[in-house]
């Protein structure tokens, strides 16, 4: 069985610096995999190679078993991407933004479907016709997630999805992500938030200096132990 997302000995050199060095992992369908690492560890670059924005210098990345470099459009088509501090258009309201981006993705959705998605991300109805200028960071994030939901892609890439959100919003977000995975979506998120990663992910990969240095999996319905991961992240304890 092919994994929806797979990195094989992925290496990446940017402006002479090795950003990623022989990173390999695979994310199974319905799994939430969190790449955990500090600033500049190479997390976001990993996401960008799956989207075809960065070309691997060595190894390869595969989406649904196919190499991204061979068919970028197919890869992007299968993936919904939530960038860090996702910013949609400030001069349009939530409906207009979603209409626009869905159309861009070659999809269309009726008002009721959009409302259902916005309901799921808990964006208050009275906010939906306001321009995004006036939104809080959390509300903007919710709109962007709604876009990812509406695209109904099998794969979701999340780049620091909870940074800047308040604790309540983070909890809501984590519940949503888990529900999506339960629904069969494959989710790869990158984060530097140890607690969040452990709370939501089925598996956590620890990345440091472009290398995957540790892997922690949840067992028997238990969450991954935060202390262990934190110790590994901080360089204490054994990977």
């Amino acid at each position, binding site marked *: 069985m092919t994994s929806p997302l797979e990195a094989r000995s992925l290496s990446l050199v940017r402006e002479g610096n090795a950003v990623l060095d022989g990173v390999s992992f695979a994310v199974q369908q319905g799994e939430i995999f969190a790449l955990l690492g500090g600033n500049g560890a190479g997390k976001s670059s990993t996401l960008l190679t799956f989207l075809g924005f960065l070309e691997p210098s060595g190894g390869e990345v595969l989406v649904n078993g196919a190499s991204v470099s061979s068919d970028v459009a197919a890869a992007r088509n299968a993936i919904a991407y939530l960038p860090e501090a*996702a910013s949609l258009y400030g*001069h349009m309201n939530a409906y207009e933004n979603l209409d626009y981006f869905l159309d861009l993705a070659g999809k269309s959705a009726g008002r009721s479907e959009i409302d259902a998605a916005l309901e799921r991300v808990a964006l208050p109805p009275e906010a939906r016709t306001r321009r995004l200028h006036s939104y809080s960071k959390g509300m903007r994030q919710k709109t962007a997630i709604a876009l990812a939901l509406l695209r109904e892609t099998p794969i979701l890439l999340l780049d620091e999805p909870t940074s800047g959100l308040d604790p309540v919003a983070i909890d809501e977000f984590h519940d949503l992500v888990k529900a999506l995975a339960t629904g069969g979506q494959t989710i790869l998120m990158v984060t530097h938030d140890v607690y969040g990663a452990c709370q939501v992910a089925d598996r956590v990969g620890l990345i440091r200096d472009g290398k995957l240095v540790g892997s922690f999996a949840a067992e028997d319905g238990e969450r991954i132990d935060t202390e262990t991961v934190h110790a590994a992240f901080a360089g204490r304890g054994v990977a």
Partner: protein
Amino acid sequence: MAKSLSREIRFLSKDKGAVFWLALAFTLSVIAVSFGVSEVREQRETIATLLEEDALDRASALEGHEEWGSAAYYAFHFTYAPPSDFAFASMGQRDTAPWKHRVRMLALEGQIHEADTRNANFGLVGRFDFAFLAASVAPLLLILLLYDLRASERTARRHDLLVATAGASSRLWLPRAIVRVGALATLLLAPLWVASAIEGTGAGMSLQASAIVIGSLLVWWLIVELVSRINATPSVLLTSLIGLWLALAIVVPALSKFAIEAANPVPDGGEILLLQRETVNDAWDLPKEATMEPFVAEHPEYAAHAVIEETWAWNWYYAFQQVGDQAAAPLVQQYRDARVERDRQARLAAFISPTSFVERSFEKLAGTDALSMIAYEDAVRNFHEELRAFHYPLMFPEAPYDEALLEDLPAYTPPS
């Protein structure tokens, strides 16, 4: 594609900045075209009035003569180059070169260089006509519409999301740019088409003009496209593009002009005049043969009547006027040749400046380019030639004065 375009049209309509630039383009086009139409009408009215007054003046000037020579001396003839039905779009050289002269049978060189032009400031600053708008302002507007298509999305950290969502970047940037370029071209050209309909401009002419505008916008689009692939901040991109615009719209034309004019000197116009005047004035003191010989060389058919016995005679007077023109003719030819050559080289140089190219193409379409002005001068020369051809047979030898024959005085027809 149609779906992408309609999406991007909706998107554009919500972008206040872009809508502002497009509205500005439309407003400027309306202004340029309306000024142009009213200017052309004014010039037509002026010509109509002058034709009328000229006929009246000539009729009264022709009264009560007893000799052909004095009738010819007092009768002026109005010549003009009417504005074409496309001149409203480009006044071109009509603002600096004369398009009307009143001439009579005296030496032509003393008359044809008169400049009945407008306020000197007009020629200096230039007019806001459609050609200027399309050539110089429209590229700037295009730059402002397109330069940050990608860069602004990058700055807003939306770029990756947009491209990832669209799959291929061609589904995003191309429709976006097409919509903007298309909107700009349509809004610029719509007033031109309306004015062309009003002025009765031929469809072929409007199509050519539209093709020139669209072609130049495409060239500028290509330039913007190439530059904006550089991964730089929007302000650096805009600065570079404005720099390119300056180079192509101002510096390159100025350098070409300087080089062309330095390489093709024109004779000092004053020399033409001086030579012609000196020849005419000297003739008074010279033996009559000194005038009649060169005259007969030009007009052998009057050789039999070329011996002037009197101390003063009209036919001798007109002969030395003609000899004055003859003496200046080589210089005049040089002056004309240099102008034609400068224009030919300017046409070539315009290929490296889209701005010059558009202005020159519009002038050519509108018949307001340098060659059209030279063609007008040629028409005046031909007409003057006809005047002489009409009078000489009546003067060599002097025929009895018959006012009725003046009905057949040549009438000026403008170059088409």
